[in-house]
């Protein structure tokens, strides 16, 4: 195949555009990472720069001594850990059971799930229910209101449906109970799917913001996302800024906080990518 001049221009354009796109995504990160290592003085006195003249870990040292930050970080870890365990248990059990085609009432329950994807009670009614169950200011409000993502449930159900029926029949022959079948055979065979959804739920829990904002009033219980918003975004809008005690954060500390909030995700990201690149989430959506 010979390359013509127009083709060369075309290919050149394609690669240029893709490089520009990647830079547009990367540069903001790069800026925030690099400047988080600068001193407050340099940021305030010097104009625009990417590379600090003087590198320091001050911002991170300050941050990891800051009581409210540490508290928020721990809270986020706890919310993510327990939340993901609840998510996975509820979602996988329900998905597995609903994957049984012979199950009486299966269609009705599927329909119940589907309806919630099209219509919901809205912010206020959910808030009132959470309030009525006395869950405000507890993490149960976050864990329970987001216990199952209907979309994940449906994808997981389709995944379990792809298991050969013989597996179930032969294990029944062997006198293996349903729960044992699930735990000893189905779960080990489903590790890739379970890993993927665990990661997706982890991301969702770590990023949880709005539910925490409305359900958690006690600032000692705030997750990192709410803390970051308070520190960065509300303070930027001077008319809304709340006077938090010790609000003497310089810009580098803000940047360090953004980095620390984003880093756990960037760590799990390669693992996530390994699975979604296989395309397991696509094409299995309809069930």
């Amino acid at each position: 195949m010979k390359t013509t001049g127009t083709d060369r221009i075309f290919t050149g354009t394609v690669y240029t555009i893709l490089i520009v796109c990647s830079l547009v995504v990367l540069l903001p990160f790069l800026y925030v990472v690099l400047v988080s290592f600068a001193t407050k003085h340099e940021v305030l006195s010097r104009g625009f720069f990417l590379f600090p003249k003087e590198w320091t870990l001050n911002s991170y040292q300050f941050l990891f001594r800051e009581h409210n930050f540490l508290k928020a970080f721990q809270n986020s870890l706890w919310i993510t850990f327990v939340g993901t365990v609840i998510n996975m248990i509820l979602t996988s059990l329900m998905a597995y059971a609903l994957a049984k085609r012979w199950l009486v009432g299966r269609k009705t329950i599927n329909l119940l799930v589907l309806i919630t994807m099209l219509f919901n009670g809205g912010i206020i009614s959910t808030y009132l229910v959470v309030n009525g169950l006395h869950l405000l200011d507890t993490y149960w409000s976050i864990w329970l209101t987001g216990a199952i993502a209907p979309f994940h449930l449906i994808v997981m159900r389709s995944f379990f449906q792809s298991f050969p029926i013989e597996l179930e029949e032969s294990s029944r022959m062997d006198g293996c109970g349903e729960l044992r079948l699930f735990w000893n055979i189905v779960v080990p065979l489903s590790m890739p799917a379970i890993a993927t959804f665990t990661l997706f739920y982890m991301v969702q829990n770590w990023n949880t913001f709005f539910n925490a904002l409305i359900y958690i009033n006690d600032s000692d219980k705030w997750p990192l996302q709410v803390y970051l918003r308070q520190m960065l975004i509300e303070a930027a809008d001077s008319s809304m800024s709340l006077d938090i005690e010790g609000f003497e954060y310089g810009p580098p500390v803000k940047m360090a906080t953004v980095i620390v909030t984003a880093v756990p995700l960037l760590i799990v990201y390669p693992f996530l990518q390994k699975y979604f690149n296989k395309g397991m989430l696509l094409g299995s959506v309809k069930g």
Partner: protein
Amino acid sequence: MADTKKLLRRGIPMYIMILPGLLYFLLFRYLPMGAIVIAFQNYDPFNGFMHSEWVGLDHFARLFGEADFWRLLKNTLILSAMNLFLFFPAPIVLALMLNEARVRAFRKTVQTITYMPHFLSWVVVVGISVLLFATQEGAVNKLFVSLGWDRIELLTNPDYFRPLYTFMNIWKESGWSAIIFLATLASVDPTLYEAAVMDGASRWKQMLHVSLPALKHVILIMFILRLGQTMDTGFEQVLLMQNTLNIDVSDVFDTYVYRVGILSAEYSYTTAVGLFKSVVGLLLIIGANSFAKRKGEEGVY
């Protein structure tokens, strides 16, 4: 009948497995739907759902009579239109470009980079935007100053809210949204390209006349899906970008419900506002889906 009984008995372990999930759906998805009745009441927390005064459609009458309503509707529609016409093509273009990049390692790298922002929370993304675009301390304005240009009030001038909103959406979600188009392009029959080469088609022509037509169905489906989401403008993003200076252009139904409902405790009225939004959203989804089916496409749900 005996069969059903047998199946029911056999299903007992399955029902036990379903039970916790089902309880979740009933308590946290269906109970709130039931709680919507307060949109037709003057809900008083002390009297509860059962004993609050019924007011019929009063709250809806108030909503439609309020100047706020038209502002909310206008803002929602404009943001949705921007999503539809500016954000929507971005992942398609990205997928077409990625498909043309034949160097595998390069393509993988660009994919890895562009998918990544999808996993960041809106708090982090809006946080980064504050660090970049703030009038005094923001990187962009500092850069402008060192170039001898004027500062731009990117975050507080209402004129910049909509472009910034769209740009951030494109920045965060284009890569991830491109996956479905890329997957479709990967399944295109290679002989189609070979035939095009035989006919002397350049790479550009191949993209235009082979790749793009292959995407037609997915594009249509995704477009319809987007239409169905007209009422959803990305609540967290808008809420986080909102400030007292841009509220005239940034206020949408969800942020209004949050502000008036949760912060000022006007539960009944804001439930009515939320219900209006949900019902319109539902009608749009159903309409879009039946439109897709009539077009001979597989429905969305």
